């Protein structure tokens, strides 16, 4: 790995470690291997959003050309968000693509992602299904996002109705995550979900 990338990541690491956010447990960062090429980030779901109370783990891969090219970031924790793929965790955020600037750091990236959770951009979606729900059935979107936060990120809100519907599909031999995904997509309409699954 290029010398510049390593020394910068080391400095940034310390920056994050000393930042106010880490004291507030709002962002976290840790090493995955010794070569500083791969890191694991964690952001807390911002307050007053469906993600509140959840902890979202991120995979951060640092390219050799860092900081001249952005780090490759994706969500490891599953999340229901218009700009994040509910399947792969891929993120649609301009600063991680064309609008990256060398002056940005891991800390600013994590904070930007936190901001993205608080302010979705449904008109520039990564996950069309979620974006659609966000615009047309916002109540269902909030419910689903909270439910996913509870199921995958340790969020506080439980929805017995959702759980029982998932259980019904599980009883039919469907994998829990697949069941949750299809129900989320079909606005928790069990019949439609079943139809979709078995048609």
């Amino acid at each position, binding site marked *: 790995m290029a010398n*510049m990338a390593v020394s910068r990541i080391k400095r940034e690491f310390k920056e994050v470690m000393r930042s106010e956010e880490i004291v507030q447990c709002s962002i976290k960062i840790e090493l995955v291997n010794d070569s500083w090429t791969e890191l694991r980030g964690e952001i807390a779901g911002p307050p007053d959003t469906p993600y509140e109370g959840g902890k979202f783990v991120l995979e951060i891969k640092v390219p050799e050309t860092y900081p*001249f090219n952005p780090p490759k970031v994706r969500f490891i924790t599953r999340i229901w968000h218009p700009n994040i793929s509910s399947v792969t965790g891929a993120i649609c955020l301009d600063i991680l693509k064309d609008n990256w*600037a060398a002056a*940005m750091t891991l800390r600013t990236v994590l904070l930007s992602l936190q901001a993205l959770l608080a302010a979705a951009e449904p008109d520039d979606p990564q996950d069309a299904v979620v974006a659609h729900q966000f615009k047309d059935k916002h109540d269902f979107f909030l419910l689903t996002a909270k439910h996913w936060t509870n199921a995958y990120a340790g969020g506080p809100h439980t929805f017995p109705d959702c759980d029982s519907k998932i259980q019904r599909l599980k009883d039919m031999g469907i994998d829990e995550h697949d069941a949750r995904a299809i129900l989320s997509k079909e606005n928790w309409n069990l019949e439609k979900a079943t139809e979709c699954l078995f048609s």
Partner: protein
Amino acid sequence: MQRSHAEQKNNGKPSSIPIASLDTSNGEHDCETDADYPDSRYECAICIDWLNEPVLTSCGHRFCKSCLNDWLQNHNQCCPLDNKHLSTDQDIFPDNFTRREIEQLKHKCPNSPMGCSLIASPIELNRHLPTCPYRRQQSEHHHQDLEVDQQQREKCPFASIKCDFVGRPETNQLEEHLKLDVPHHMQLILKAFQQTTLDSWQPHKSNSSTSPNPPPPPAQYANGVDEQIVQAMYQRIVILEQRAREYETRVENLNKELRLCRQQPIDARYSNGTIIWQIEQLTPLITRLRANANNQVYSHECYTSPYGYKFCARLNIQPRKPHVLSLHVHLMQSENDFHLDWPFKGRIKLCMVHPADKSLSQHDTIMTKPEILAFHQPREAISTRGFGFLEYANISNIMHLGFCADDRLLIKIEINIV
């Protein structure tokens, strides 16, 4: 801009986040203390390090020259901080003011606690650090991580007897400590020794408490005189053990020498005038002797007595008679020649030994005569004149009669003074 916020944190008190978990193998850049973090005025936003050859953009941002060049080459021509368009020709100027300001800052080398005395500008220090003779190779850690630091320091070898000295591994502190604190260490040894002897005394006492003559109680032992005796005895034992070991080694070495001596042939001085000449690989030897009349082979030497005449024997083949071996006896110069009677007077017995049947061995005897020059005092190392038989033995006979088992011929020569 979020950078300035972070800078203030950096200059503040170090947080209590366990940085030991960041342990990695390569630590050149990691020895820096908070003071090494640049002021945001002097920091390049790209490498987050001290501005090296700073340049100023038309939008008012400073970067290292090489960092900004790399950025502009890789990307569209925008400032990394505010996305304003930058033209390489018009919007970027060398910021010599900032360069001088940074050059005037003087910082200690981060390895100064280890003994590096360099004080230089941050840029120079960055260049110096990878080659600093005091740099730590093994792992990174911060100066505030005292616990980790302590473990990495060198402990005194006397630590087990409660010497609590620790030194920096890069320095010779430990060496100096070992030299200077000898009395302290001796005291510690004495204390530890007393402790051990006292401790080891306990079971002995309980064992012998049943015996009619109980040994002196520990209290008595603890009195100064006995203690001194025990100590003296102990030292004596150590010395004796050491000596015993030295002797063992010496005996071993002498044994080795002796074995070596036994392997060597007997000194010619004590051969008593007898040459036992084992000629190995006779066939190739004969071929060689036949090939050239000048080729000859000499036996090892013998003395008639420790202070007597010195002889050797010689084999060759005459070109005119290639089927017979010639055998001659030659006198040799020796340290005894000056006191011996000349010419040599005596009897020479030659015997070609048959390995299987003694009765077949060939015996010849020569008596010396004073007129034969071969028995006069030799003038060369080996007398040029020898005495013996031009036709000593027929080669085909040697082969047929079985003198030459395993291609080996044995000739015994006995020389006696008469």
